[in-house]
């Protein structure tokens, strides 16, 4: 990670963050007095300007590139806004960094964010007081941009908590309904649990490294002498930070807030709970990749949690009937994929999936919003069906998104998901070579991994590590099948077949206004072509070889340079994740890496297609079948329907538990501390006074007696002083 500072554009970074903040302030302070149109304009132009400056800065970063040893090096743009905290030699700046990683995130946030702002104008048409909504939405964008642009972990943490706040506010946007308010509260508190762990990790890292700065931390972790010092805290720190990520990104065990968060307005679900905020955990791990590859155990934990989450969330999604709940569980499941990717060290794949997921999941949510809008608020897919007729744009874009998420070839999800699955199978060097992590230079890495390569090849099923890899891969493929199944179940039940809505609703069915359909189309375009920056490696690398072409691209190993665009995404993030870029390492593993990839890809595509087929067969062909199946496995169905009862358990154990403890403590406080100890002392003094007051009878003679007694005692005391 070389850092070249281009001073030309640096203040753009400040502006990118500033615009949404200004928008939020203006709408928040003056909003109630402004006409609705102004509110819309302020809200959308704030994020729009951010998008423009993002594009300019990323372009600047691109132009900043120079040829390095292993391909183009983009460096980074750093903008130091001001010093935030100064205390005893510790300096914490509000500083921003734009490097290829944050550039991807920025484009997603501002781009998708802009589309969703525009969509919201139409969606929130009937709301009064929409200024509040746009204020929160802009504030969210501000916090999210802080999160991804932060140059040190504290700025990230500011954004991290800020997005939690906005999520809270937006989930509870319709706060008159108690259940919405509860959902928002739950989201915030569960996130706080994660934030607590995050803080714990921060403290550990700071304790050892003495800095929060990503660049300095990177140097600390990759310099041999200091890396040794980091070693003892790397595992606990990474695990704690990972717990923070599970909170924000809704992974096991802290995922329960996300389905409830669907209480918010649908565009909010699209922006916050699908495209941006929930991916913050993935981003953070990618940002701290040097820490998460430090110790193989960390990777196993992350990938295992990710895989399990992906699978279990998918099983829950299969039986949900609320259109947004299905999407919520689907989001959790897809986030699980991303964690699987970053767990096995495939950071590029994880970020790639993050990007494509942002496109198609935002599209799915916005599509569902369009449906809900048309249905007059109904979210139950059992009351929908056949909406294709009324809502052609929504239906078509929704179909594109479903194909994308299912991993249908050439759609965005296909590229990213297959990259993840392939990497899950082959990225053994991250998880089995501990030295790989602490030595960051490519040369030493290749040296340290070569024994592995020579001894066993890429996939050695006999070792423990590889068993894990096979597990990740197989679970991933299974989840891919489930994903295709439940997404097309949703699609068929919503848009195809008979319309099951009642007459009144049916009369009101209509296609949404252009302000809503245009973002849908834009996102559909992205869902179609957004993945074309990361083709499977066998196409640019393997195919030309078979066809007899050859060349010397950046990746070496015979890829012709003119096909480099096909791996554009990987090249873009190359320098950020030196350790884990597939185009560099895949050729080192095994003799036929691209054949493996081809096979892996084919398997997952086949599974996905069969999932679609199954959905078609069950929900479109035989509408009575689902009920029969549900009846035949009633027990399992109920467990899935109730989301494995995790919510109930959490509620019973943690929520009720702490309230119970609190009540007990309260009684303890009142009775023991205040009653027995404090008031008891007062009571004791009072009683003592009651006894002693008899001494003070007013009888002078008795007083005289006391005096005499006192004198006698003193005399004795003086006499026998030495014995005391």
């Amino acid at each position, binding site marked *: 990670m070389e850092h070249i500072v281009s001073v030309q554009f640096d203040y753009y970074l400040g502006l990118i963050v500033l615009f949404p903040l200004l928008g939020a302030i203006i709408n*928040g302070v003056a909003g*109630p007095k402004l006409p609705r149109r102004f509110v819309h304009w302020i809200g959308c132009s704030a994020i729009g300007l951010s998008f423009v400056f993002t594009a300019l800065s990323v372009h600047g970063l691109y132009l900043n590139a120079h040829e390095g040893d292993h391909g183009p090096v983009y460096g980074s743009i750093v903008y130091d806004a*001001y*010093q*935030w*905290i*100064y*205390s*005893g*030699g*510790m*300096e914490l700046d509000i500083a921003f960094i734009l490097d290829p990683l944050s550039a991807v995130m920025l484009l997603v946030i501002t781009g998708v964010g802009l589309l969703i702002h525009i969509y919201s104008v139409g969606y929130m048409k009937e709301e009064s007081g929409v200024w509040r909504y746009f204020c929160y939405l802009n504030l969210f964008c501000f916090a999210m941009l802080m999160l991804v642009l932060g140059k040190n972990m*504290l700025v990230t*943490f*500011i954004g991290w*908590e*800020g997005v939690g*706040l906005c999520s*809270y506010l937006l989930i*509870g946007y319709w*706060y*008159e*309904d*108690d259940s919405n*308010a*509860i959902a928002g*509260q739950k989201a*915030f*508190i569960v996130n*706080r*649990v994660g*934030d*607590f762990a995050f*803080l*714990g990790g*921060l*403290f*550990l890292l*700071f*304790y050892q490294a003495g800095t929060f700065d990503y660049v300095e931390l990177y140097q600390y972790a990759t310099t041999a*002498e*200091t890396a040794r*010092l980091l070693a003892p805290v790397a595992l606990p720190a990474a695990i704690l930070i990972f717990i923070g990520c599970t909170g924000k990104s809704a992974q096991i065990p802290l995922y329960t807030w996300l389905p409830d968060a669907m209480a918010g307005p649908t565009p909010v679900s699209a922006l916050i709970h699908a495209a941006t905020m929930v991916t913050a955990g993935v981003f953070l791990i990618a940002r701290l990749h040097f820490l998460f590859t430090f110790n193989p155990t960390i990777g196993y934990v992350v990938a295992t949690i990710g895989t399990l989450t992906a699978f279990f969330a998918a099983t829950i999604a299969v039986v949900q009937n609320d259109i947004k709940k299905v999407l919520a569980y689907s989001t959790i499941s897809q986030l699980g994929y991303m964690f699987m990717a970053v767990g096995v060290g495939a950071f590029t794949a994880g970020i790639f999936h993050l990007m494509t997921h942002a496109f198609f999941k935002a599209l799915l949510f916005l599509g569902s919003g369009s449906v809900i809008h048309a249905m007059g608020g109904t979210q139950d897919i059992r009351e929908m069906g056949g909406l294709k007729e009324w809502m052609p744009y929504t239906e078509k874009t929704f179909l594109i998104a479903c194909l994308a998420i299912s991993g249908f070839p050439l759609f965005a999800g296909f590229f990213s998901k297959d990259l993840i699955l392939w990497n899950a199978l082959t990225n053994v060097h991250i998880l089995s070579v501990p030295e790989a992590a602490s030595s960051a230079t490519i040369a030493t890495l290749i040296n340290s991994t070569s024994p592995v390569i020579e001894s066993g090849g890429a996939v050695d099923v006999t070792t423990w590590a590889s068993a894990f890899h096979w597990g990740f891969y197989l679970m991933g493929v299974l989840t891919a099948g489930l994903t295709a199944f439940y997404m097309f179940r949703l699609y068929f039940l919503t848009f195809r077949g008979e319309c099951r809505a009642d007459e009144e609703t049916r009369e009101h069915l209509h296609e949404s206004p252009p302000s809503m359909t245009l973002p849908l189309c834009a996102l559909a375009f992205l869902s179609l072509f957004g993945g074309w920056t990361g083709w499977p490696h066998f196409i640019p690398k393997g195919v030309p070889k078979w066809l007899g072409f050859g060349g010397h691209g950046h990746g070496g190993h015979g890829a012709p340079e003119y096909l480099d665009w096909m791996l554009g995404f990987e090249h873009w993030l190359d320098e950020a994740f030196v350790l884990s870029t597939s185009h560099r390492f895949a050729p080192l593993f095994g003799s036929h890496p691209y054949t493996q990839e081809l096979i892996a890809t084919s398997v997952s595509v086949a599974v996905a297609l069969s999932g679609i087929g199954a959905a078609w067969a069950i929900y479109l062909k035989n509408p009575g079948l689902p009920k029969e199946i549900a009846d035949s496995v009633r027990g399992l169905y109920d467990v899935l329907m109730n989301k494995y009862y995790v919510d109930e358990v959490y509620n019973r154990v943690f929520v009720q538990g*702490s*309230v119970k*403890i*609190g*009540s007990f*403590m*309260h009684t303890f*406080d009142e009775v023991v*501390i*205040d009653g027995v*100890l*404090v008031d008891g002392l*007062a009571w004791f003094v009072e009683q003592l006074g009651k006894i002693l007051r008899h001494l003070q009878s007013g009888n002078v003679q008795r007083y005289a007696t006391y005096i005499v007694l006192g004198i006698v005692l003193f005399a004795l005391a003086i006499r026998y002083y030495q014995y005391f």
Partner: protein
Amino acid sequence: MADPTAILGTMTALGAALPSASSFPWLTVITFGPLIGILALMLIPRDQTDLLRNTALLCTLGVFVVSLGVLVHFDPSVVAESGQVFAFQLTDGPVEWIPALGIHYYLGVDGISLWLVLLTTFLGPIVIYSTYSSVDEHVKEYMICLLFLQIGMVGALVSLDVFLFYIFWEMMLIPMYLIIGVWGADQRIYAAVKFFVYTIVGSLLMLIGILYVYFETGGAGGGYSFMFTDLAAVDLTYNEQFWLFAAFFLAFAIKVPLVPFHTWLPRAHVQAPTAGSVILAGVLLKMGTYGMLRYAFPLFPRALKTFAPYIAIVATIGVVYGALMAMVQDNIKRLVAYSSISHLGFCVLGLISMTPQGLAGGMYVMLAHGISTGGLFLAVGILYERRHTKAIEAYGGVAKSMPIFSAMFMIVIFASAGLPGLNGFVGEFLSLLGTAKSHFLWFDQPLVFAPESVLDLSATSGEGGIAFGGAMQGLPVDGQVTPEMTAYLFALVAATGVIWAAGYLLWMWRRVMFGPLDKEENRNLSDLGVREILYMLPIVLMALFMGVYPKFFLSRMDPTLNDFLQHMKTEVEREIPKSETTQGDDPETVPPARGTVIVEEPNDAWVPDRPMFDEDIREADDEE
């Protein structure tokens, strides 16, 4: 009759316009400024309530304006001379007050008291402005009480003579007692008496401690003296320090209050009128932590070393305990009161960690808590004025009927919950960060409860007798847990406070502000009036400013804290044999020996290039 407000106006204007730092007795004016108001109030007939209120408001506003002058003239780059603990500035005196007893009139500020003084003067006018609608009986006496209270608070903060400090310390007590006891709710007498007795017990212990140290000041350098610098110069044996620290600390722990000395606080808060609660939470509680930092810690550093881990345990318990208690309260004020206990646990934990970040964090928690909890109490007061109940279940859906209020209340709530970007976070974060890397919170000197070893004066004149007198059972012994890990565990347990804080505050918020507006009484609640906005807005803006630009505050307290740490480092390490350093290959990166105070090298970059205002403005002032 001459209009006293006009006189006051000119006086404060004069005070603000007076030129240079050295000649003008800033601190005397700030401390006794309210006295002018009290005199004016005495001349005003008691039935002219508006005039009474305006006079008091104007007086406190004037004091606040003058106190800004202190901020301007405060020079953060002044560091303590060698042998001194603190570098005091803008000093008034020392003037001999009672020469026979060595009592002086001596005022001064440093980076620690500066901000607390400003916090007090900042809250003063806000509090008085908030009482316009809430107190209608005995307005004259109420205003006099509030002004008197302010004299006591500022005086205790700026006095550098311990006797003077003690007088001011006790002076705070009486008006507060009256405020709770006269203008409070139903059970006011019980609460007021409990508050009074509890506090005075602590104070008397402290008085004994003060007198003990005072009588040690004699000897070589002539007569006895109550001056802080003279007290700090006294060389006490470890055993003396042990008991004196216990006496001082108990007094301050009751004031803070630390669990288990906290039970007066919820009662006092619930019974006190809004203004009383704001002052109590905003400033009075800080007197405890300020006292620790100013007196208990630097005067008895070696005893502190022994006590530190136990204090840290108590503070950590306080964080969690206060939060759990707050969770189950059904009275809003009581909830906020328990949240104070939780927050001040962070503060004490940070102070005790003896790291630069921990100290700065503890200080910042004090300030932030003063602002945000003050705001919370004001908000509760606003609700109370409308509905005359503090029960949470009486509300619901209030956000709908009071939008402006809900926006301000929310900012204050999140400030209190420690959201980054607002003031609460900075302090808690720094406290926990400092605690996590502290080497100070380690049980290498077990507290010995066996009386013979403590009372045996001859055996413990030096270090050895008590220090290793016998390990307590159940405590970690060498090699089991590293000292770093104990401190980190304290930080980790205390950090759960951020979860609890979100829990109880948001739960309360949801039940009060969100949900359906199903209670008829809440439907027509009027939103904030201009006056209410005017006194809530400074709180909200200050919460934002303190969260967005904490360096403004931190950089001005940093050198003082650094001096303090240097002092503690020399004192703690002076007679304790250097413990063996932990294993490490690289001498550069070996963590400091256990039980040390971490002093980080100062960095020149932090000193603000210029004071708060532009140089030329200041020069223009000088010429006048």
